[in-house]
């Protein structure tokens, strides 16, 4: 149980952090605790509001309901796929506030109020067209996850090199092994030429 001996400053850190704010509010007014709204503990079913592909939705879920199950079984958006329960396949990739996350390892209650984009929301964009033009799918089961991952990747790296594309899409697995064509599709998108 050692205190940091060198090079750390709690004072500087605490300034502006939640710790200092909470501590001062408690000490400044004795009745502060009465004004604090307790954190709701959710047990059993609850209503959660989300924005999915630009539309406001309200769903009834249990704490254990994953975002993937909510999308597929309540909102009828079956693009994101249940391939791996631990998210290692990347097939359930969706964007939450623009960030690529695995819907299979995300709780619906944890994304309350956030904005979700699924591959269905990208259907009119360039990415599906580039996948079709470059024949970047075989059985197609991994494709929705790939499409969303490519969207997230290109948002961050619009001028990616081939090496960066390979590394960036490492989180998505294709059992058919159609990686070469996915790579071509993304290269075409980077070049702004979706017909390859």
């Amino acid at each position: 149980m050692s205190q940091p001996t060198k090079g750390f400053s709690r004072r500087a850190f605490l300034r502006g952090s939640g710790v200092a704010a909470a501590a001062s509010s408690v000490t400044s007014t004795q009745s502060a605790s009465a004004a604090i709204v307790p954190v709701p503990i959710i047990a059993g079913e609850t209503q959660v509001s989300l924005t999915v592909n630009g539309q406001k939705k309200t769903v009834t879920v249990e704490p254990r309901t994953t975002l993937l199950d909510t999308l597929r079984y309540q909102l009828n958006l079956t693009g994101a796929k249940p391939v791996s329960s631990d998210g290692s396949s990347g097939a359930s990739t969706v964007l939450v506030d623009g960030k690529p996350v695995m819907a299979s390892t995300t709780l619906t209650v944890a994304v309350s109020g956030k904005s979700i984009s699924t591959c269905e929301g990208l259907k009119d964009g360039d990415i599906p067209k580039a996948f079709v033009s470059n024949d970047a799918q075989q059985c197609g089961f991994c494709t929705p996850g790939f499409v969303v991952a490519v969207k997230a990747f290109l948002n961050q790296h619009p001028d990616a090199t081939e090496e960066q594309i390979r590394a960036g899409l490492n989180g998505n697995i294709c059992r058919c092994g159609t990686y070469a064509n996915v790579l071509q599709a993304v290269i075409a998108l980077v070049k702004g030429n979706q017909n390859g």
Partner: protein
Amino acid sequence: MKNFEYAQPRTEQEAVALLADQSKHSVVLAGGTDLISLMKRSVITPDRVVNIAEISGLQRIQRDEHGSIWVGAAVSLQSFLESSYTTELAAAQQIIQGIASLQLQAQGTVVGELLRRPMCWYFRSGHGLLAQQGRMVVEGDNRYHAILGNRRSAKFVNPSRLAPALIAAGAFVRIIKPGNDERFLELESLYQTPDQDGQTENVLTQGELVTHVMIPAQRDRLSAAYEIRHGEGPDQPLVSAAVGIQAERGIVREATVVLGQVAPIPWMAVEAARNLVGQPLNEQTATTAGIEAVAGALPLSGNEYKIQLTQVAVKRAVLRAAGLECGGLECQPPLEQDHHSGPLMV
């Protein structure tokens, strides 16, 4: 997945208050990349899940007046990587870049990565960390298990990829519990080797929350990490090494060598580090450090290969820190153009 209570606190105090109830098995959720899959497999069956991702104080990376970097427990690997702070943390930067899955980087957190549960397949199949006091590992498939620190029951390896790099940088963690109790631990002291069922691979007790990892200013300290992996996918590395080195006119003044994926804790290769002191950084001293790092290794039936790999990882990490070589695929010598010409091609 067994159902559970869920709460989303707004402050650290609310979080520890929610975690404090001793009658409930409570767990902390941040990114969820590891926890949710463990819950789906019923390896962990908590009564309460406390999501700390929305605590604004934990979403920040800050630098204090000493130049130390405080990374909050809700900071994603991606945010950390993209912050200007990692430019001085070469080893940590290399590791996060190596966790080359957009999803894991965006969803996973820095502190969550440090506290991932072991990947040992006996543990993940519900046999507990010790898997019948180590018997299942010894008699079964142990190709990814420990070669160091494995003489007692625990044979799993600590899964954190980032821990060796941050330990080599001298990182601390801040831990809080109810009653404004806070404690600071050197990152290496966060981990332990369990000896009895019920113990875990870290020293956290029920109700404690790691709020930050703090990394002191590195100034001109050199660092590097080297992971040996099957391929470029998101799989666990087979072994890894991270080094932090303070050198003066080419001579090592102080060194830390930490091994990953070889022991139930991030393994401090103390002897290897001590013997680097006073030496120049070159291929020979790097090779020696690698050999010394695994001097006490005791391989199981299926993981002797890890000894050689660990030697190589240490050597390459040292050389990479010194800017001498990176090794592996990234800097192969140029192919000899006429390699296949000559008599065979005629």
